């Protein structure tokens, strides 16, 4: 995306030597990733690969054990509370289950960030919320409660809420999970449209290959807490590594087994069993 005022695309997210633990278990083992302005970066990996944890770090929800995360040139965990709030206004997140507030209407959900962070006129906020609903093809749904929407609609409403402040970076957690192929394709198109129109940097965590190939500018593959691959879709398809080809061809993986660890798990040594990820 060269339309922004800055002709040289710069890194909007820089992750360096990220290590993180759940209890005693190390989940990520020193990860380095750059996400460039205006690109759609897809983070892939099977369950247990640490990709959800990684996303929580990128959204500044969870401090790492060690390593740094820079978002828009700010070291996230060295910011004052006030600076962190300011940074968060530039981020939008569409959560897996939508995470709409069930006590508010769809419209109120979308307007909440505006209410809390701006002093705009009420009518302006309403127009903005309706505009965003138009963008996600949910026009006229602002007075419904989230419980009255279908799964696909909830996700699109969540996108509308995520983009209401026109964020610089948009995160998607498993956009196609639980959706039928048609709806999930619509969501992919929406992601592409948002990038093209707003020049947003978009970071998508998914395990859906088709979706990833459609939208990704670059793909990061995580495997058991390490980065297996970073690069374009073409590079990924041609990659010689057997592990990656297995992933692409959806062959189930014989995970490498640490015999001692496995035995401890089976015999139920409590110290080891604690701290499993959710």
């Amino acid at each position, binding site marked *: 995306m060269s339309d922004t005022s800055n002709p040289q695309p710069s890194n909007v997210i820089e992750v360096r030597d990220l290590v993180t633990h759940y209890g005693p278990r190390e989940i990520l083992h020193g990860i380095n990733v750059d996400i460039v302005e205006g690109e759609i970066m897809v983070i892939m990996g099977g369950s247990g690969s640490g990709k959800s944890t990684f996303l*929580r770090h990128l*959204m*500044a*929800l969870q401090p790492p054990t060690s390593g740094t995360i820079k978002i828009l040139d700010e070291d996230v965990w060295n910011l004052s*509370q*006030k600076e*962190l*709030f*300011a940074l*968060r*206004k530039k*981020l939008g*997140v569409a*959560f*897996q*289950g939508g*995470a*709409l*507030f*069930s006590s508010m209407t769809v419209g109120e959900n979308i307007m*909440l*960030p505006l209410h*809390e*962070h701006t002093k705009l006129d009420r009518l302006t906020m309403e127009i903005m919320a309706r505009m965003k609903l138009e963008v996600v093809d949910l026009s006229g749904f602002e007075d419904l409660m989230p419980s009255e929407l279908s799964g696909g609609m909830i996700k699109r409403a969540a996108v509308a809420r995520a983009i209401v402040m026109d964020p610089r970076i948009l995160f998607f957690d498993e956009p196609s999970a639980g959706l039928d192929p048609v709806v999930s394709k619509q969501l992919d198109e929406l992601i592409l449209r948002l990038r093209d129109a707003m020049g947003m940097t978009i970071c998508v965590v998914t395990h859906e290959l088709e979706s990833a190939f459609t939208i990704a500018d670059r793909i990061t593959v995580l495997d058991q807490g390490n980065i297996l691959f970073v690069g374009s879709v073409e590079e990924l398809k041609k990659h010689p590594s057997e592990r990656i080809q297995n992933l692409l061809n959806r062959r189930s993986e014989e995970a490498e087994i640490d015999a001692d660890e496995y035995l401890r798990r089976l015999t139920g040594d409590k110290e080891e069993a604690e701290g499993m990820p*959710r």
Partner: protein
Amino acid sequence: MVEKSNQNAAARFFDRVGRISVASFDEVGRHGAMLLESVYWLVLGPRMNQPVRLGSIFAEMMEIGVRAIGIIGIMAAAIGAMLAIQGIYSLKIFGAEGHVVLGVAFSMVREFAPLITGILVAGRSGSALSARLGTMKINQELDALEVMGINPTRFLVVPSLIASLIMVPVLTFMSMVLGLYAAALYVNAALGMSLAAFFDQTIDVLSVGDLTHGIGKAAIFGVLIALIGVLNGFLVKGGAEGVGKATTRSVVQCISAIVVTDMLFALVATF
């Protein structure tokens, strides 16, 4: 062999006791931390454009307080009448039925009004807070607030805490009045004492200290209910079942905390 397994059992027992004590201290610490954090946001929030909204405080006061008026009123009246009935019955032994006002007034204002109000609010709102926050947690709504730059403590906890701190004493005062009124009605029917005489005696007997004793306890109960309800909600793990467990846990903890605090407060205040 036998001895060894006994030793193991003992070790396991102390191990468990140790773990439980550490966990309980940890939880008490969390309550303290939550309380401090709430005060922090209340005071410093406006400076970071994160003010505590008056509207949400009123909404919570409505939910915690106003909607509970009916049930608390009925319970308080029942307890007031019960105290009068038992008082007259037991004082009859000494032929001192006339002194029933003293017993009813003291026990209602100092003990029963705050206790029954606290327990009912715990049952209604302590559990509701846990259920609401727990559901929000498993639906990632708390994460959503956080990434939107809205602090969940400021947005969700402080309004409930303030509402509870205000409404439990207010409801307690209402309980006192209604309980005494019900007692007066029964005494009127049983002994023929007029309502005016009953309340004259009540006001004679009670000091301002008795009233503040009752209301002060209620304020502490209010804080306890909100903190325990909120924290159990925040700590929910593992889906809908976790929410159910947290709700139950929250009610049990609230009521235990209320009863124990009540005893300690009485002990310290009458020392």
